[in-house]
C-alpha cells in the first residue's frame, strides 16, 4: 500500500497539523517507509483473531455515584486562550 499526497494532506488536516507544500513529498516518503515496515505484519494470518484491547487482564474499576470533583472554574479557565463571561471564548463555529 502506498500513500499518495492527497492522503498526506488529509491526515495532516485530521491531526490539525500544518504541513508546508514543500514538505509534503518528504512526509509522503516517510509515511510510505513506515507503512512498508508495518506491512511485514501481513505475513501473519489474523483472520479470526480479535483485536487486542489490553495486555493487562484487569477488571474495570467502578466508581460510586458521588459528586467529588469540580467547582474550580478559575482553574479550568486558567489555560484558556480567551475566556469571557465565565465561558471559553473561541472563534465562531457554526455547524
Amino acid at each position, binding site marked *: 500500500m502506498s500513500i499518495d499526497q492527497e492522503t498526506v494532506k488529509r491526515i495532516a488536516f485530521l491531526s490539525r497539523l500544518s504541513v508546508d507544500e514543500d514538505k509534503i513529498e518528504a512526509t509522503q516518503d516517510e509515511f510510505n517507509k513506515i507503512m512498508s515496515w508495518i506491512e511485514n505484519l501481513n505475513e501473519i494470518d489474523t483472520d479470526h483473531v480479535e483485536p487486542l484491547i489490553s495486555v493487562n487482564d484487569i477488571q474495570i474499576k467502578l466508581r460510586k455515584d458521588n459528586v467529588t470533583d469540580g467547582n474550580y472554574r478559575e482553574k479550568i479557565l486558567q489555560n484558556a486562550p480567551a475566556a469571557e*463571561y465565565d465561558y471559553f471564548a473561541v472563534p465562531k463555529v457554526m455547524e
Partner: protein
Amino acid sequence: MWRQKSKKMPVLKGYKMSEYVIETPKGKWEVIVGLEIHCQIISQSKIFSGASTEFGDDPNVNVSFVDAGMPGMLPTLNEHCVFQAVKTGLGLQAKINKYSEFSRKNYFYADMPTDYQITQFRYPIVGEGKVKIDLSDGSEKDIRIERMHIEQDAGKSIHDLSPTKSYIDLNRAGIGLMEIVTKPDFRAPEEAGAFLRKLRSILRYLKTCDGNMDEGSMRCDVNVSVRPFGTDELRTRCEMKNVNSVKFVMQAIENEAKRQIEQYENGLTVEQETRQFDPSTGQTKVMRKKEFAHDYRYFPEPDLPPLILSDEFIEKVRQDMVELPDAKKKRFIETLGLTAYDAMVICENQETADFFEKAAQGHDAKKVANWMMGDFFAMLNKKKCDIQNSPVSAENLGALVELISKDVISGKIAKDVFEIMSETGENPEKIVEEKGLKQVTDTSEIEKIIDQVIA
C-alpha cells in the same frame, strides 16, 4: 452515529397500520425511517468524573480536570451509569451484553476538549431489543432495537452572545448518555412519533432519563429514505441531526421524504448527507455532504479496560425493575376492564397511572377512568396543573365516583360537585352534605314533597 449494516431491507410482515403512502401523479412511494436517540442518564455525577450533572448551574462550574481534557487525567467509570444502562436495556426487552468495551471516536470541535468522545463501538453494553408502539387506529407494532451503547456528552456551544465568537460551557461535557439505535422499521411519521412517546414513557418509568426533548436531555437523529411502494429496495438515506421534539421529528420525516421523492421523479439522485431540520420552516437543508463526512477513526480506549458484568449485578438491576407501561396497560384492560385507549393514555406516565390506581381503589375503575379522561384531564389542562399538584385528590375522585355509583348524586350533579372540588379541594361527601345536593330516590319521600307542593 452508527452505520446500519444490513444491505437488503425486508418488506415488513404483519403491517397493519393504515398504510402511509405518498402518492404523486407519477407513482406511489413509501418512507423508511430509523432513529438514533441520545438519552442523558440520570445520575448525580458524570459518567467518567466526579463532577456534578446539575442542569442550569453557572457556566463551567461542574467541570473537573477530566472533563476539561487536561493531560494525564484518567476516566473512571460511574457504577450507577452502568446500572442505569442495564436497567434501560431490560426496559427495551434487550439482550444485556456481559462483555462490552469503550472506544475513542475522534473528532475536532470546540465543545469537545479531549478531541475524542469516549463511546462504545464494536461491543455495546446492550444488544437487540424491541419496543411496542400504539398507533392511532388501535393497532400495535414492534419496533426493533439494534443496540444501545453508553458514552459521554459534549459541552454546550453558545453562538448568539457575540457576533464573532462562540462561548463554550463544559458543564454538560462528560454527562452520561445512552444512545439507542433502532432498526429501520418505521414506515410512517406517526410510527416514529408513537415510538418516541413510548420510549420517553419507558425511560421515565425506569427513572433512567427524564426524557425532556426541549431541554435536550433526549435528542433524536432521524434517518430517512424512500422507495417505490411495495418494493424491497434500499435507497440512499439522509440523516437529520438533533431534531428536538416529537412533532418536529414527524414533520422532518414527511418533508424529507417529499424532497427525496421529488429528486427521484425529476430524474435526480439523493446524495448521502447530513441535513438540518429548520423548525421555523419545517424544511430540511444540507449541513454536511458525504465527502466531508467525519472520519472518526475509532480505536479501543486505552484508559479503560473492558466492562464485564456479573450475573449478580444484572440480577440486582432486575430486582429494581418496575411495572412498565405495556404491562400496566395490559393489567388495567384485563383486570380493571378499561378500554385499550383509556389504558394507553392513563399509563403513558407513571404519576397518572398511580393516581388512577389510587382513585380506583375500591371503586368502579371504569367509571374512574371515564372521569379522568373527561372532566379531570380537562380541569388539569385548564388550570395548567400537573397531576401531582391536582386540587382534586385521587381519594376524592374515587369518593365522587362512589357517590354516583350508590345513586347518592346524579351524574349531572356530580359535574357541579367536581367543579367545586377543583376550586376548593374539599371532599365530595362534605360538599354534597353542605349544599344539600343529595338525590332523593325513595319514592315515598318524593310523594311527600309533591303533596307539600300541591297543598
